[in-house]
């Protein structure tokens, strides 16, 4: 009897530390967000009672919200898709044996080992029209004759932010995929070579299926991280001009800490959460079901 209970309880004991850790340090703060989203909140964060979802109504009625939501979607898709593709290709390249591979791998870690705030400051500094190092470099090389304004429109600035986002996300994907690639048994490839398979066949028939699980993990988490990414946009443009480069997170940060509308900010984050939840659960139900079949 005792043994039976123990056996039943065993898995729960294994996951308990993780559950406790997350429950205390993440779930409690999340509950606070929901509480604030449902309450009237004064400018200094004092709760003033349930206000019948007024925060949500105010947010949704504001035309800016649509613009910001669109930006968020463009930002997330562009950064995740491009950095996944680039990161995957880079991982394939770095998985080859070549002289200097170790150094190359270390270099690829650089963007990721740098705080985002600094990374974004550096990019802002590089692309500045008047004293940016990119203009200086291109002018010294004779490619440009006069300084170029790299950010003539809000869209151009947003594109640079996306580029910066890709730049810092690629290493993450690369190393996820590399760790997957390295656990592939080389005998698979040897067997395939003997069977006369070419490079692409090996790539699609062996490599891709085998790194799928690490690629799936990196993609799902990337979607969440990128959707919620804050420092790059905040450092480079603060969402200027007129919310044209804002995403949900920078927008709600401004609402909370600049406009003193913490209730509305909480409502924005709940809306963002619901969007993410729908996307991620669709994706997860799909992949998990497949995963269970493989078990």
């Amino acid at each position, binding site marked *: 009897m005792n043994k039976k209970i123990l056996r039943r309880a065993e898995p729960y004991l294994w*996951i308990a530390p993780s559950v406790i*850790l997350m429950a205390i340090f993440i779930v*409690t703060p999340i509950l606070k967000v929901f509480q604030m989203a449902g309450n009237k909140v004064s400018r200094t964060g004092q709760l003033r009672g349930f206000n019948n979802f007024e925060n949500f109504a105010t947010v949704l009625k504001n035309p800016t919200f649509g613009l910001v939501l669109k930006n968020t979607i463009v930002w997330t898709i562009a950064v995740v898709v491009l950095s996944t593709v680039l990161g995957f290709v880079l991982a394939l390249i770095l998985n080859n044996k070549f002289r200097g591979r170790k150094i190359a791998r270390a270099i690829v*870690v650089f963007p990721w080992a*740098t705080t985002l705030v600094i*990374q974004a400051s550096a990019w802002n*500094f590089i692309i500045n029209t008047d004293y940016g190092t990119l203009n200086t470099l291109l002018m010294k090389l004779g490619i440009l004759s006069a300084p170029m304004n790299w950010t003539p429109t809000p869209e151009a600035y947003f594109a640079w932010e996306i580029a910066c986002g890709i730049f810092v996300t690629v290493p993450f994907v690369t190393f996820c995929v590399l760790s997957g690639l390295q656990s592939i048994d080389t005998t698979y490839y040897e067997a395939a070579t003997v069977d006369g398979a070419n490079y692409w066949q090996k790539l699609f028939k062996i490599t891709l299926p085998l790194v799928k699980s690490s690629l799936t993990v990196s993609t799902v988490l990337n979607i969440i991280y990128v959707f919620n990414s804050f420092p790059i946009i905040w450092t480079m443009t603060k969402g200027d001009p007129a919310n044209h480069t804002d995403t949900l997170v920078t927008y709600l940060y401004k609402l909370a800490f600049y406009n003193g509308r913490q209730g509305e900010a909480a409502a924005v*984050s709940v809306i963002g959460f619901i969007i993410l939840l729908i996307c991620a659960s669709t994706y997860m139900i799909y992949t998990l079901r497949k995963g269970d079949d493989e078990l």
Partner: protein
Amino acid sequence: MNQTLKKPVSIQKVILRLLLYFVVLDVCIITLYPYFAMFTTALKSRVEIFSSNGTILPVTALWSNFIEIWSRAPMGRYMLNSFLIAGGSTIIAMLCGIPAAYALARMKFKGQTAFLGFVIVSQMFAPVVLLIGIYQVMQALGLTDSIVGLIFINAAFNQAFTIWLLRGTFMGISAEMEQAATIDGCNRLQSMLKVLLPVAAPGIVTTLIFIFINAWNEYTVALCLISTDTLKPLTVGINTFNGYNMIEWQYLFAASIFAVIPVVILFMCIEKNLVSGLASGGVKG
């Protein structure tokens, strides 16, 4: 058969090799360019940084900028704090994450899918959003203005990654050897520690690096939780160079370069183990 094929392949191989080096070189140049820009800027005076005839390399390199930051801010202290936070978070995240990932990969239990879902859902709010809630939790635990508090927060925020990646790694490894070990009289924990973990080394090392780097770079929560200057991590500490009337680019960048170096060194050390861990795993497999 191999020998007859060798000649045509080798020409193709040379071209491919060259192409490979070309691509790798390009990637490295692009990746390093911002650091080159940061480094040269860190060596310049403000006058030169903003001068109308821009320079690529500093006219007179002010190495003193790199020295001055150490007297202008307790950089050594900040760096030590960052190490404690990142190291501590990594340990806690692994201690909590490995058993959970193991349970998910090797056992069947009710609520398995729910737990996996919960792990993902827990990541869906940006830390920026949770600041006030986090502060209140820390107050209740008496952990505001403490490195321990930051360690727990970072460990918690990295659970999703740890669990998902390790679960994938563990599931990719056949359970046969562990079963054999169990028959030999090992219990589950022993078989996990002795058999599974060595084979899973590459995945574990990757996860370690990820957590360490994420915690090393965390900014917002540390900013709001830590009030004592000597407890601040590097990311928050170097904000000193971001003044009301000016941004001290040369100091900011000099400090940032110092902040990158330890992570890259750590990575290079660990990467070696990653390859060797892999090799031993391969032999057994």
